[in-house]
């Protein structure tokens, strides 16, 4: 058994969900995603038992393409994130009225498949295919099941698609170039390449175009808020919980090892990109009127910090980035679930029309509160561990980086608590508000459990990713170039 089983299961899940018809699609999707989670858990156990779980099949001799799937800790960590969030996301849609459910769930599963593939692929070509494949389902999910004025939604979604597609095409060109140099797309071969500094800079920038838009870093973020707002919440969760991690993961996996010289020479600039995102996202979030948009900007701020951490090129930065990717994945899914519950019950997205929910839905309030606290990285939550490590890595580079990055804990608390206050507290709302249903409660409970478990005991994840981080560090810093 190797990692490919997970991909096969996810793909099968997509097919089965489609075939099972509207009535059973959600259950089928949930079941298969849980099975996939189980499978990736087994794979993880095998990995921890020092067995090789990566695979590589030759796809085509000339051009030299392998279907190579990585079995290292970093990929498995991201795989676990994907397969763990997928059932939660599916679960969160229970009880919602979804038209043409079979296509909806099928697309979600397919997107899970593509994203898992992106995290696993070790061959640049296959990686790119998965990368692009992940774009198609979310396009349709956002377009067809989204909300808001039809024209606005279309505008936002098309912009999102073209924008991200544009970025990734530059990455494609970079891969084409790398292939002409290395004669292979394998990560190991590409990382071994001894490119001149100019070449590295161009390749770095080409990758950056893809990742900066996907993550997104400012000023490439303009698609984000609109799409997060318009997409159905499951789509937003996929986007914010997993998909933007694709970009961050790719920085670690592809961009830094292949073009380390460029990364080193322009480190400060790229750290500033991240930090600017932290400040900008936080500040914009302060005055957002729309709940989902606010969360989108909070996400912008968080990923900015993660990216800044990744670009510090030190061990703490990289591992902190991974930890925060995972923790942010869970937290943001929880937050969007909360937002979805509110929007579903109150039929509005405007924060000004909310408020006074707490007395009607105490359970929900507690759960939402915990998600807010996780988001502001209260110690003992998973997010704190990641944020602390990333801030330390920034501090390691320059004290000012840490201070500016650290403003996130002030501003983050400010906008999140302000939001919480305006959304949940105050005089009892006149509209009736149903407390969480069992599926929503279960989703929250799982997320909360994960948040606190890893907040107190992040060691399993740290141990899992440490060898990969070490390898990447080695590739970045040990000059040209041995593997």
């Amino acid at each position: 058994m190797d990692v490919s089983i997970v991909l096969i299961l996810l793909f099968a899940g997509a097919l089965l969900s489609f075939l099972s018809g509207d009535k059973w699609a959600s259950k089928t999707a949930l079941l298969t995603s849980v099975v996939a989670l189980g499978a990736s858990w087994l794979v993880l156990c095998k990995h921890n038992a020092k067995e090789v779980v990566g695979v590589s099949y030759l796809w085509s001799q000339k051009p030299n393409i392998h279907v190579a799937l990585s079995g290292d800790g970093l990929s498995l960590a991201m795989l676990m994130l994907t397969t763990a969030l997928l059932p939660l996301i599916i679960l969160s849609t229970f009880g919602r009225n979804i038209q043409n459910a079979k296509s909806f769930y099928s697309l979600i599963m397919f997107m899970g498949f593509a994203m898992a593939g992106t995290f696993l692929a070790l061959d640049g070509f296959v990686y790119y295919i998965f990368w692009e494949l992940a774009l198609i389902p979310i396009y349709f999910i956002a377009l067809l099941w989204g909300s808001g004025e039809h024209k606005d939604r279309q505008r936002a979604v098309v912009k999102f698609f073209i924008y991200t597609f544009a970025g990734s095409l530059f990455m494609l060109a970079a891969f084409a170039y790398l292939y002409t140099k290395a004669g292979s797309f394998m990560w190991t071969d590409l990382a071994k390449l001894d490119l001149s500094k100019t070449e590295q800079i161009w390749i770095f920038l080409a990758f950056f175009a893809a990742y900066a838009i996907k993550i997104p870093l400012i000023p490439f973020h303009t698609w984000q808020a609109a799409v997060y707002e318009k997409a159905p919440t499951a789509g937003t969760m996929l986007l914010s919980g997993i998909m933007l991690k694709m970009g961050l993961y790719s920085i670690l996996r592809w961009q830094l090892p292949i073009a380390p010289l460029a990364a080193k020479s322009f480190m400060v600039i790229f750290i500033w990109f991240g930090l600017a995102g932290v400040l900008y996202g936080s500040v914009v979030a302060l005055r957002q009127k729309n709940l989902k948009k606010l969360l989108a900007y909070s996400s912008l701020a968080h990923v900015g910090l993660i990216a800044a951490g990744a670009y510090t090129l030190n061990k703490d930065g990289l591992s902190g980035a991974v930890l925060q990717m995972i923790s942010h994945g869970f937290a943001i899914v929880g937050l969007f679930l909360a937002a979805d519950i509110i929007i579903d019950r109150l039929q509005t997205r405007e924060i000004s029309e909310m408020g006074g929910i707490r007395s009607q839905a105490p359970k929900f309030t507690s759960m939402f509160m915990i998600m807010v606290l996780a988001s502001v990285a209260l110690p003992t939550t998973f997010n704190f561990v990641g944020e602390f490590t990333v801030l330390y890595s920034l501090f390691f580079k320059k004290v000012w980086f840490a201070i500016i990055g650290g403003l996130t804990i002030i501003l983050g608390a400010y906008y999140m608590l302000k939001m919480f206050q305006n959304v949940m507290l105050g005089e009892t709302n006149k509209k009736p508000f149903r407390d969480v249903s069992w599926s929503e409660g279960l989703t929250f409970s799982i997320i909360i459990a994960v948040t606190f478990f890893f907040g107190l005991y992040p060691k399993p994840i740290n141990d899992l990713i440490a060898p990969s981080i070490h390898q990447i560090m080695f590739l970045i810093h040990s000059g040209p170039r041995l593997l």
Partner: protein
Amino acid sequence: MDQTYILLLLLAPLAGFILNVFFGKKAGHNGAGYLATFAVFISFCVTLMYFLQINKTATPVQVNLFEWFSFGKVTVNMGILLDQLSLLWLMFVTGIGTLIHLYSVSYMHDDENRHKFFAYLNLFIFFMLLLVTGDNLLVMFIGWEGVGLCSYLLIGFWYKNQDYNDAAKKAFIMNRIGDLGFLIGMFIIAYLTKTLDYAQIPDAIKFKLSLLQEPQQMKFISALSIAALALFIGACGKSAQIPLYTWLPDAMAGPTPVSALIHAATMVTAGIFMVTRMHFLFDLAPNVQNVIAIVGAVTSIVAATIGLVQNDIKKVLAYSTVSQLGLMFLALGLGAYEVAVFHVITHAFFKACLFLGSGSVIHALHGEQDMRKMGALKKWMPITYITFLISSLAISGIPPFSGFFSKDEILMTAFHENKVLYVIGSVASIMTAFYMFRLLYLTFFKDFRGTEEQKHHLHESPALITFPLIVLAILAAIGGLISFPGASWLNQYLAPVLGAKEHGEHHLGTTEYALMAVAVIGGLIGIGIAYAKYLKKGEVPPADEEMTGLHKVLYHKYYIDEAYEFLFVKPINALSTFFRDTLETALSGFVYGFGKVTNAIGDQGRLLQNGSVGRYLFFFVMGMVAIVSYLFYNKIV
């Protein structure tokens, strides 16, 4: 064995929290309250056990629960350290905590969400225990942020009132500003010493210093000074010092037991605890110590002046707390850690008592907090009055009550170190005496100024409320004994933690007695003025709109909140609005612009394709000519 007890110590309040969250509502009318009280009481018992033990053995107990996480070269353990300092804190946290829980059972008995209230209180105790007992800075930080969270939850406990929620939010954010300082401080220490354990940092510093040459040593020490300063910023946030103190008066929005427990006795002293914990660091940084002393002194006088004119009974107490905390920091800045600790303890007793007393008054008046509408309450509430009086005397520094001893120690230290600071501290003390007795007179003497309705319902509070008052009043009265001048049990007790002090104890000479006399006289003057003004003349503070001049400025707290609003909140909100409305649109428009331009070119291009065969042929030939002539020009053909 230790591990079990320590887990019991820590987890009892946590269990109380969890049980109350899930089952509190079903636990009968007062079930939640008693459960919570019991949970804290267990912690108190364990603490007492260890406290007695350490008095005998003088060896701290250290337990590693599990490895938390690691960064850089630092590995952080979930480690618990029970030494003299932490046990001292634990004693009054759990002790006063138990009393206040008990008090709350009655105080909150008709609130529909009391189970939540007790859950939060338990959670607070849990985090406070963690803050105090952690054996490294990060575990302290968990508690540090955790108590901040509980403070937030409890200030905004009556969540239907958005003003209260604002206050809660403000407290959390102000604290977070300090927490950033704390974080940076931790980073610097971790970077320089590769550890965050209190036990190892001093050794690591010493080791590093021994390796370095003279100029690098200076650099190293200045880096440590920055760390100390950053940590002090953290302490400013938590302990409400200038410039981060404004949240504490607002925090009075919470239920009164919360104000007593969190915003007077325990949480706000966390900053003092931290500085004392890290005393070796501050000792290395005299400049930072100066800053601390000055900040403390200024805070004490500023808060005291504001306290002079407040009309809300809890606001007066809040500013008094800020002022007293300032005095403690003054002591810290002067390196007299044990003095600060002493004042923390006595302050905890009398301030808790004062708050609970005010709670009792407010309870009796059904939520009325404005002193202008009180008066003559001693008739109806004798126990409250007497305990209140004892505590007021204590805080005013009238011997033989506890406050006299601790405050006097501070002033004495200041006198020896810096006369200016001494004068400031003394003036603040006089003011304290004044406003405390102003409060006392306005509340308990003269005629009742409230409505008939209220008057009708006036009654002494039930035993559950008065019992804690009595206990605390007794402690406030006799608490000074623990550090009786000349024979200080406290100083000996703390010696293993704080090391041999160069200050030592003040041996009592003429100067000292003179200073004591001055302090007592000062206190009496303050009381005297209050007596003349409010009892003799029977003045009642004017209504809000009638205030003028300095009075008005003071009443409006020097307009500090407005200034912050203007300097920070408004600009950042304006920036946010600008980003949201202008920059976002512009950026978005820029991206759309590409599409728009391309589309526009497409539209123009369509005009080229006008359907005329002649034109098509013309372009055909032109293209042909262009290609051929280009090739000719390049001499290819």
